[in-house]
């Protein structure tokens, strides 16, 4: 029973973590992409469509990643090359994604999906209490954890990661040093898109192997809030994703049990928590300075 709850929480947290870790990298490079929800739903519908058509969930996952990245490339072209406003462009990307996915997915509504099978390691996954939790989950769960570790390593241990953080901190200085600000931002934006696409595929191939319109149900927004909640630190992001996952599962259970807490209040908890965290971190100027990408959302036009 206990293990079941934990596994449900992990299932709820994984798509949040996948989308948020991508957005974290994007924002660390100084770009604010509010289109996570749109890229996620595009990933969900493409992943589902390809998986159902070809019968291979893995092809579906691959397609979702590519579509997420392509969709973010559109965002990158608009905001980085044409220097449009990032907030407005991100919002329209979400709207576009929601609309477009509904159209693409129309003929897939109600069709039986293909589920990405969970991994079963003999013996290990039979260990009581933790066996299935650690050794018997779906492959994307492991991907999300490895991705987080990989991002930590990349951002704080590699030179490329340092360059990316420097671009997010001060793009004018980076440019003056000869760092290719725009190229790096393109790559970061596309990584974010690929991760969002993957998160979408998780929803339509693992979470509920089905296509339902608007099935992301605001998870893209929660992912965005999570990045701030984690104050741009990957490990905190992991903790946050599981916290938010737990809250959303708890919300379902309390609703089912008929506890007298309005469900709207529970669904707003992640956002409330984010506000509280924002207030707390902004009290510590040093912490804010060290972690918040200082050029976040600011347009960059090189001085020539």
């Amino acid at each position: 029973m206990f293990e079941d709850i934990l596994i449900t929480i992990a299932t709820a947290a994984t798509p949040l973590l996948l989308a948020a870790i991508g957005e974290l990298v994007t924002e660390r490079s100084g770009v604010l992409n509010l289109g996570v929800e749109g890229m996620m739903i595009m990933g969900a519908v493409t992943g589902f469509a390809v998986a159902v058509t070809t019968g291979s969930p893995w092809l579906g996952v691959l397609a979702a990643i590519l579509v997420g990245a392509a969709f973010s490339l559109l965002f990158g072209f608009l905001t980085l090359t044409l220097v449009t406003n990032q907030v407005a462009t991100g919002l329209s990307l979400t709207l576009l994604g929601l609309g477009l996915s509904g159209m693409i997915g129309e003929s897939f509504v109600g069709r039986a999906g293909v589920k990405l099978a969970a991994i079963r390691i003999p013996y290990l996954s039979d260990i009581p209490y933790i066996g299935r939790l650690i050794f018997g989950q779906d492959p994307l769960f492991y991907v999300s954890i490895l991705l987080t570790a990989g991002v930590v390593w990349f951002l704080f241990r590699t030179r490329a990661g340092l360059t990316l953080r420097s671009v997010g901190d001060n793009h004018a200085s980076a440019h003056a040093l000869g760092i290719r600000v725009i190229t790096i931002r393109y790559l970061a934006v596309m990584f974010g898109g690929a991760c969002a696409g993957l998160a979408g595929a998780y929803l339509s191939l693992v979470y509920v192997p089905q296509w339902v319109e608007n099935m992301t149900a605001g998870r893209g927004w929660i992912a965005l809030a999570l990045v701030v909640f984690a104050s741009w630190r990957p490990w905190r992001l992991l903790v946050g994703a599981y916290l938010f996952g737990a809250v959303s599962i708890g919300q379902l259970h309390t609703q089912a049990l008929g506890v007298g807490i309005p469900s709207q209040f529970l669904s707003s908890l992640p956002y409330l928590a984010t506000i509280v965290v924002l207030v707390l971190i902004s009290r510590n100027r040093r912490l804010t300075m060290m972690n918040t990408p200082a050029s976040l959302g600011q347009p960059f036009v090189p001085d020539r």
Partner: protein
Amino acid sequence: MDSTGDAAAEPLLEVRGLSKIFGTLKACDSIDLEIRRGEIHALLGENGAGKSTLVKMLFGALEPTAGTIRWKGQEVAIRSPGEARRLGIGMVFQHFSLFDALTAAENIILSLDDPAPVSAVAARARELSRAYGLPLDPQAHVGDLSVGERQRIEIIRCLLQDPELIILDEPTSVLTPQEADKLFDTLETLRSEGRSILYISHRLEEVKRLCDRATVLRGGRVVGHSDPRRETAASLARMMVGGDVPVVVRDKPAATREALLEVRGLNRKAGHPFAVSLSEIELTVHAGEILGVAGVAGNGQGELFEAISGEALQESADTVRICGHAAGRHDITGRRLMGAAFVPEERLGHAAAPFMTLTQNLLLSRYRTDARAFLGRLGIIRNAVVASAAKRVSTAMDVRKGSEDPEATALSGGNLQKFVIGRELDRQPRVLVVNQPTWGVDAGAAARIRQALVDLAKGGSAVLVISQDLDELFEICDAIAVMHGGRLSTPVPIAEATYEKIGLLMGGARPEATSGLPLEETV
């Protein structure tokens, strides 16, 4: 400086007809320049003469509109700073190009082409910093450092690349005299190693002492070459300005003893690990008086400024009194309303918002104090009034700019400084607190700023000047106090003050002690 063979005789860098046009402004107008191997070449000129623009083109940070650059006899197009570095050109920028959120070591790594690990670079940086007498803590976050400390990082970063030509854009304007001396030794060592240095500075004495040749710019054009050793500071200045440089005239201090700015028992805990805590600061500035605060960088001057300006509040309202009002619990706007004005050290980003126009910047600092003039009913901004105030400031301070109302970042350093000081002076404040008023300002403009401060005091205001430039303090102050380790000495009246006396007070403050952490602290 050997002249064996043709290769050594030909110049390292040769520039012909280099021009740069911003909109309608010719920042550089067909400039010719030649830098030989193993020489220290000075680039002189007033604020806005085009010095930074020229060197940015040499470093690939700006694209020339016209002209050619030859490097070791070969014509080259330097399209990016990376290409410049590969050719062997290194540069220390005037407005720092550092990353606040990163450590000193990380900042250095970013400018190196070879992918060395952090620890190795930190070790090399520490080695260089010791060899060249530029103390540096590789693990310190740049955001926590003072301007002088940041510049050391820039210099070390440049030296680490082992360049053949080193461009220094006003490297000493923020260094203490001791630090500057060490830098000169460094530069002389580098010259003896056969490297060339292109040196921009407004301090003509050091140019005389250090440089082999000088090229003088005025209004984007080369107006002359000279051998600085044969010139005097005054003759060099005349060449730059194209006329005589004004001398600051100071009358006897007015006789009133009305205290306008009082600080009593100011204590402040360091906000972050690298800040200095202030203890028991006492100071009084009377009407008509200019009090100077001298001291080596990083001894709490910045913290003192923040405490007086209201960027940091005090626990007790009486700790800071402005024009007789208890100001300790008031923020910066509240203190401005009591009649005070403040000019912080960092002009770009602190004193002025870089991407806002001068007019907007003027409104930002004065919308409350001048609400009656600048704001109409319902708080609607009277643009015409604000614009004419900005224009008045520009005229009064002789701010040279490319267009009518440019963004702050488009102004040359010295001109922006004149503007931010003029903006506050224009209010005729009863109390003025200014930190490093003439950092990077040319001789003519510096004289103008100092004269303005003297005139303000003569009109009955109290002026507090925090500066590292002892000459400046001796020129304009009635008394000088010294800041050391977060404590302030009792002021020495100017009649009794000598360089030795003040130097002694600054004395215990070895530059090594300023970086907060011992250098041995490793990665």
